[in-house]
């Protein structure tokens, strides 16, 4: 066989290998999705979406309080985490020659690798012991998980904007802050939105830090210094319970959580779609 034939054979087999790897990687994704949809869809009805969790022995009930709780907790965490992460990311990208940048980047990477339960315990010691199990404590813990993800992706996305584009703006007599906001940030908004989205999806599904900062709670929102129900913990508590209707609620909660995350994903992608093709 000549070299060309050998090369063609290798090329073909590598391509087949790549397809196979792709299929293997997609199997778990689709089996989880289909499992959640098949088992969760049957428990979703009007009661499920409007009623709070049932107590032991009670029939029916839903997860409305957990949906409310997750939205509030994740929303509050995002309110703290997104601005802090964004501003840190902008600093690291636009002032990377500053002496303080490389230690910040290092500690940010360390933080992103922290086990979430450790973050939870830290917030337990810091906040729960003073104001008790609460939304505030949980949101604080979740925002700490969020910050390094947002920071890193913001920095990476902004660094992808070519230096020549920054120079063009500076040479026009545009101040540096304006260049950063209107030229660099707007050029990087798609990557940044993706990073924020990943971070939101990640904390929406976090359970360990929520468990140690808010505890399991079955009631509606009653103030930021009080706990509230959450979808992630619903799944945990209901799934390991011996009651069949609770287990069904766990599958339903899982489906709602997945839909929530997919929904955020699609929304952000639509909003940041390229204006020019």
């Amino acid at each position: 066989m000549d070299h060309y034939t050998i090369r063609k054979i290798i090329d073909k087999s590598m391509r087949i290998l790549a397809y196979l790897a792709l299929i293997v990687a997609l199997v778990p994704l689709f089996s989880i999705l289909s499992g959640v949809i098949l088992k969760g869809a049957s428990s979703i009805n009007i009661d499920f979406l409007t009623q709070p969790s049932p107590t032991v022995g009670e029939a029916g009930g839903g997860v409305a309080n957990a949906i409310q709780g997750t939205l509030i907790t994740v929303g509050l965490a995002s309110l703290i985490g997104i601005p802090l992460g964004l501003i840190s990311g902008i600093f690291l990208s636009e002032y990377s020659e500053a002496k303080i940048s490389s230690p910040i980047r290092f500690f940010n990477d360390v933080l992103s690798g922290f086990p979430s339960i450790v973050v939870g315990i830290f917030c337990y010691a810091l906040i729960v012991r003073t104001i008790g199990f609460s939304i505030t404590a949980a949101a604080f813990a979740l925002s700490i998980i969020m910050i390094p993800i947002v920071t890193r992706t913001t920095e990476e996305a902004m660094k992808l904007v070519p230096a020549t584009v920054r120079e063009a703006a500076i040479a026009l007599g545009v101040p540096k802050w304006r260049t950063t906001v209107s030229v660099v940030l707007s050029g990087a908004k798609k990557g940044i939105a993706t990073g924020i989205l990943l971070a939101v999806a990640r904390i929406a599904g976090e359970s360990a830090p929520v468990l140690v900062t808010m505890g399991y709670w079955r009631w509606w929102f009653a103030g930021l210094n009080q706990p509230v129900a959450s979808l992630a913990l619903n799944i945990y508590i209901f799934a390991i319970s011996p009651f069949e209707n609770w287990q069904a609620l766990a599958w339903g909660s899982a489906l709602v959580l997945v839909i929530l995350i997919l929904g955020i994903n699609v929304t952000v992608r639509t909003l940041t779609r390229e204006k020019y093709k």
Partner: protein
Amino acid sequence: MFYKFEIENLNAWFGSKQVLKNINIKIREKAVTAIIGPSGCGKTTLIRCLNRMHEIVPHARVSGKVLFNGIDIYAEDVDPVQTRRKMGMVFQKPNPFPMMSIYDNVAAGLKLNGVRDKKRLNEVVERSLKMAILWDEVKDDLNKSGASLSGGQQQRLCIARALAVEPEVMLMDEPASALDPIATAKLEVLIRMLAKDYTVVIVTHNMQQAARVSDFTAFLYLGELIEYGSTKDVFENPKNELTEKYITGQFG
């Protein structure tokens, strides 16, 4: 005759490496001055010292004076941002803002500095594109992305963008190096036209281009100014042996 720039004892460094050594040049108003020299001789650094772009690179330093309209732009109380607004700059590679339309690219200098008046913006965009000889090619596509144009059109778009802020000088750093011969020819016609109203400083590694478009030529070598005079004199009667060797293609 009036001098737009008077450069006095200018030195520039990147970190500890000195790239410009004691440069003294006076640049005439409403004329084209070309800066030529082999790669790495400091041409780009010199032009970037004229609008304080050199210092935005980390660890870059400048010493000496650059008088612009008689005022030192490196004086303590001079705002570099205000200084840059009086000078348009065109770069080696066309660099339109990728996420902006053709219209917004031209209007960027005004819009980003707070001008909101639609009527004024429309006028400025049309006038600038006409001056850059691009209007006829893009007037129906003003909302298309600036990145959708060809390389030569992008470079003229960048010139229109620089003209839109009504600068007093145009600084061009090898503006034709990424262009084909036809686009280059168009650009050279444009440079001659601009010289009627503007002071143009152009860096080029193409000696024929310098000879064609410029009124004055400065020859730099290893960070030093070797020769400076009218283009005719520099090309026909170079005083320095190095200049003669360079323009006759013996090195560089």
